[in-house]
């Protein structure tokens, strides 16, 4: 049976994250959005709560949350700040390659770092390898018991704040995607440097940087899976992580809808609240319909992951629909707020800026549609 009920513990976790979002994140978001500085004080508290390590299994000291629970908690965080939710999401994204293919020793190495309070980053994208992730040019050369990595990664979430990376590099460019391999790389290895922080349109609380690898030596046992499996690992990881981008998008949509409902009841024009106009009521209803539909697509994709059933297509559908919805709902929210929606003194325009990235990262929505169509036409 498809059971959508939550346990008492799960409800308490939601309560904890709601409280954290309201008391710790919400009061700080405006200032962080202006400064774009990484909010270490908030992130450290979030680490204390264990929110940076949601998928880490209990045997490695983590909470071992299901995908459904990770999505619900990501949504709650995103209601307060999608940038902070993205920081958390990137940690999950980086954990999946290890969960999917890691050996016992690799899991211990990586999860120990996470549980000691470190952040993680997933290093796939390069200046000339975006949607075409198989075009990765960073090289990995085996020398004795080590691999030597050289190259440049770009747009890396947590790039400048992470303690550990998963890095994708090619061992043989002529083999195309079959030449890629995946590695665990600790931040403190010689040869790693971080570029300047991107000055972004939205999710300004999150840290996005280039990561440079110059003759970085790692032990051979840091290879994830087998040589040549890198592309497969990257794609499996992204399939698994995409519903979380969907969940962050749902949090954004819900926050925009809630703010719109409140404002439309308070704002008076023509001698009555603006929500007395059917035109606005129908906008609110459509925002609610789309948000709710997005939420259940996300939860269903997560349910499939937790149940061990195929989820690639559903995960792409959930990410695409939820992020398109967030863009639409936040745009409508600005419309409902009128001129005040366009003002930086109100929190609404930030939501619209934050929403845009959800359609771009972890595979653009065009690429998602290619994936979905590919599955339909198989």
């Amino acid at each position, binding site marked *: 049976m498809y059971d959508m009920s939550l346990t*008492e513990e799960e409800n308490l976790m939601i309560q*904890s994250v709601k409280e*954290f979002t309201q008391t710790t994140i919400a009061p700080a978001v405006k200032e962080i959005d202006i400064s774009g500085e990484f909010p270490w004080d908030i992130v450290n508290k979030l680490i204390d*709560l264990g929110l940076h390590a*949601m998928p880490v299994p209990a045997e490695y000291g983590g909470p071992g949350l299901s995908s459904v629970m990770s999505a619900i908690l990501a949504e709650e965080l995103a209601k307060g700040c999608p940038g902070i939710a993205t920081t958390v999401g990137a940690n999950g994204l980086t954990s999946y390659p290890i969960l999917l293919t890691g050996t016992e020793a690799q899991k211990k190495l990586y999860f120990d770092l996470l549980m000691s309070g470190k952040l993680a980053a997933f290093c796939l994208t390069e200046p000339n390898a975006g949607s075409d992730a198989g075009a990765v040019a960073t090289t990995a050369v085996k020398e004795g018991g080590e691999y030597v990595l050289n190259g440049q990664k770009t747009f890396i979430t947590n790039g400048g704040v992470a303690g550990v990376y998963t890095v994708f590099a090619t061992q043989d460019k002529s083999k195309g995607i079959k030449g890629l391999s995946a590695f665990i790389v600790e931040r403190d290895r010689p040869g790693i440097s971080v570029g300047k922080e991107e000055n972004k349109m939205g999710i300004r609380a999150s840290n996005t940087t280039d990561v440079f690898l110059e003759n970085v030596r790692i032990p051979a046992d840091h290879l994830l899976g087998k040589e040549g499996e890198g592309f497969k690992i990257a794609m499996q990881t992204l399939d698994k992580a995409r519903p979380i981008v969907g969940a962050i998008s749902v949090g954004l949509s819900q926050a925009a809808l809630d703010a719109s409902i409140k404002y439309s009841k308070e704002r008076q024009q023509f001698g009555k609240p603006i929500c007395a106009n059917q035109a606005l009521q129908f906008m609110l209803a459509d925002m609610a319909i789309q948000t709710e539909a997005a939420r259940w697509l996300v939860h269903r994709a997560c349910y499939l992951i937790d149940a061990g059933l195929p989820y690639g297509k559903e995960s792409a559908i959930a990410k695409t629909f939820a992020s398109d919805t967030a863009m639409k709902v936040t745009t409508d929210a600005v419309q409902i707020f009128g001129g005040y929606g366009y003002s930086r003194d109100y929190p609404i325009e930030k939501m619209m800026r934050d929403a845009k990235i959800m359609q771009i990262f972890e595979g653009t929505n065009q690429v998602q549609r290619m994936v979905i169509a590919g599955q339909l036409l198989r």
Partner: protein
Amino acid sequence: MKIITCYKWALDEEDIIIDKQSREVITGRAKYRISPYDRNALECGVRFAEANGGEIVALTVGGPETAGSTKDVLSRGANRAVYIACPELAAADSAATSRALAAAVNKIGDFDLIICGEGSSDNYAQQTGPRLAELLGVPVVSYVSKAEIEGNMLRAERKLEDGMEAVETPLPALITVLPDINEARIPSLKQILAAGRKPVDPFTIEDLNLPADMIKPLSARLSTQGAVTDRRCVVLQGDGAAIELVGILKSEGIC
């Protein structure tokens, strides 16, 4: 060191709706949660235990719904939860509550310190703590905004209307704390997951030999009406405005 922290499983007032016409207090949709000052009481106990070692027993008495409070309180750092949950205690006043608590404390046995919130979020009668101390025959320090333990002494600052008072008392003792005493931490995911593995002891009024008339409320609430503030915005203009204003204030009984 054994610390007992008392808490009330009270309705969340944010979920309570007041009907503007009838002034009826509608609680149908309200959920229960730990009364906020009691979270500070528990946090105070947890910090003492972190600093000095020891065990924290979280204790509550109330209606049948109280049984559902244990995981919440255990996720906040208590080592063990004890409750009495029965219909007889559903409408308990401070007198009945403190008698039931005293019986439970006696069954729990030797304690060094009992910590209560200054008052509960629903009634804020501020009586349960002092009554409990009286029943147990231990000193009580109320309005505590700061407390520390040194050996067998508890030093506390009391925040009173006209100033601060520094007091000390030997243990065992009971304190009632204000929210100023600390910022109650939010439970972590792992604390929540661990809560289900901690011991819970449901006590019954039969176990405690509590006769029915001991836990009967001394006072009864006959009715409750919500407070409704009616705001109006009247703009007076022109030469006669001041006189008009005085007229309105008089008719409203304000001057």
